[in-house]
């Protein structure tokens, strides 16, 4: 015979469970706020200090001993060019590696080993990449302290991110698409070219841009390979020199990047340079946010085109 349920006890249990639920959600919000609020405070502080400094001249002037005349021209041009090299190097290699691992690689221990290594590479501190690049690119390959060395270094740094993003994006494609393609007699390459890559491009793009957003703020590896601080000229324009050799002059030019310019300004005695640093920081954060915004927009646009 069943005992009549003790309503009181059940209500108590429910109330207790709900209390825990509340407690956890409060804890969750608090943890979230630690990150969000500290970012907001830092960003606001930087914006208040830096934004008044953001005139047109700030973007078109070279560094100077006079804080009021100093600008970020060589820094932002350097950053843009380095990012270009990084993207050109990391994207094809990363995507190819990701596609290979997902679509071609046999599932054996060698593949397993490679996968573990890629995951590990994503966690290696950036300074290690800097030291590697100093030995390999700068001295061994004789590329010097150039835009090319810096771009390749950052490409190595974001390669794991691109590979992992590519694989995730490819895995999200339903298996039946592949099967349908193979059933029509397509080769693996045809399947990849006509189906896998187009459908996964949204995810891949997001990964690439998030990787780039990380690379743009990297300071340690760039300093290690020997980026400069004072540089009051621009590298030659890409692909504008006399072909064929002159077109690549810009790759070997000395350069500086935004984080280094900022770092130098924060350590100067004059308070006015701190304002410059804040302004440069604002621009850099804005660049990163813009890249992330672009990633979200592209993902939205490309996803709309996928119909399955």
């Amino acid at each position: 015979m069943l005992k009549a349920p003790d309503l009181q006890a059940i209500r108590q249990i429910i109330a207790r469970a709900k209390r825990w639920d509340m407690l956890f959600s409060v804890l969750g919000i608090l943890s979230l706020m630690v990150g969000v609020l500290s970012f907001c405070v830092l960003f606001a502080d930087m914006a208040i200090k830096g934004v008044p400094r953001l005139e047109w001249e700030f973007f078109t002037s070279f560094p100077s001993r006079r804080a009021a005349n100093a600008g970020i021209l060589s820094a932002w041009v350097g950053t843009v060019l380095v990012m270009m090299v990084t993207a050109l190097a990391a994207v094809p290699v990363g995507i190819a590696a990701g596609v290979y691992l997902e679509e071609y690689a046999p599932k054996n221990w060698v593949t397993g080993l490679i996968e573990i290594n890629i995951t590990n590479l994503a966690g290696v501190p950036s300074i290690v990449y800097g030291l590697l690049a100093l030995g390999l690119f700068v001295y061994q390959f004789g590329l010097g302290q150039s835009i090319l060395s810096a771009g390749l270094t950052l490409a190595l740094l974001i390669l794991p991110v691109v590979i992992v993003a590519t694989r995730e994006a490819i895995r999200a494609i339903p298996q039946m698409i592949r099967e349908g393609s193979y059933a029509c007699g397509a080769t693996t390459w045809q399947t990849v070219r006509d189906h896998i890559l187009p459908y996964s491009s949204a995810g891949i793009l997001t990964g690439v841009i998030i990787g780039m957003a990380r690379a743009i703020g990297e300071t340690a590896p760039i300093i290690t390979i020997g980026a400069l601080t004072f540089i009051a000229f621009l590298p030659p324009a890409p692909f504008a020199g006399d072909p064929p050799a002159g077109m690549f002059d810009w790759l070997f030019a000395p350069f500086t990047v935004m984080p280094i310019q900022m770092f130098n300004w924060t350590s100067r005695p004059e308070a006015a340079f701190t304002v410059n640093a804040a302004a440069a920081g604002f621009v850099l954060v804005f660049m990163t946010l813009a890249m992330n915004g672009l990633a979200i927009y592209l993902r939205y646009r490309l996803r709309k085109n996928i119909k399955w």
Partner: protein
Amino acid sequence: MKSMKLSVVTAAVAAALSVSAGSALADTFVKIDGSSTVYPITEAVAEEFQKAKKNAVKVTVGISGTGGGFKKFCRGEIDISDASRPILKKEMEDCAKAGIKYIELPVAFDALTVVVNPKNTFLKQVTVAVLKMMWEPSAQGKITRWNQINPAWPDAPLKLFGPGADSGTFDYFTEAVNGKSKASRGDFTASEDDNVLVQGVTRDANALGYFGFAYYDENKDKLKAVPVVNPKGKAVSPSIAAVMAGEYEPLARPIFIYVSAKAMDRPEVKEFVEFYLKHGGKLAKEVKYVPLSDADYKHALDNFKKKKTGTGFGGVAEVGVKVADLLKRDPKE
């Protein structure tokens, strides 16, 4: 279609940047790297030099630190090394091995400034002996209160701030005060960023710290510089005039550039160094460093033109050496 778009973008970027590409082929570079202490002066000189040459010569300046600068210098990667201390034995050997000869040129003084919080009213002056009591290695963990040094001072904790061990400023201060380079107590707040030290002393009424004069000068309203008693027994406040008169001893130190003798054969490097020694004094003052006397600059220029290679120090740090005497020395390699 896509590739057309891409080429349009590339062309636009190229057009935007091509303003600078005019003389890409005829580029002449002067490459400089080294101490962050010397950096502001070199930056100022580079800026003015490029203006004077209408950007025909491209000057690059890095900040790898004095040690890092000499490493690159002795590998032949750069033309000029900024140094906040004289070249050391080990670095001389490296340069000799690589066959790199150099000319040592003092370019300005930096006055190490001892500062306290403005609320500190009892410290009117300080002797080297007192500084030594505070900073010597054996003070570690023992001298922790002001009244341990002088019973007349308050019974308050002694909070010390100074540059980190990789800094040339640290090397010179320890040599001048404790008698041995790099010999210092370890239990003080150290930072390679002098602005951190400035803030530390500003916030703590019981603090004492030291760093370059430029950082004090910019924060005069928040800090108090302590006059240092010189070997003649006179308490001298740090100032450009006092250093130039040779009275701010022993904490005024000369800073240097080292020019590669091989690079000197290139007209742009030679011109740059001559420009440095002619206009460096005025520019040093502008960035709050202390210029040498006109006679010293002239003498240095003379040494440079005569290509007197080597160092006047012989690989050992020295405190209180007069620049005029240094320039007269017969340099060794």
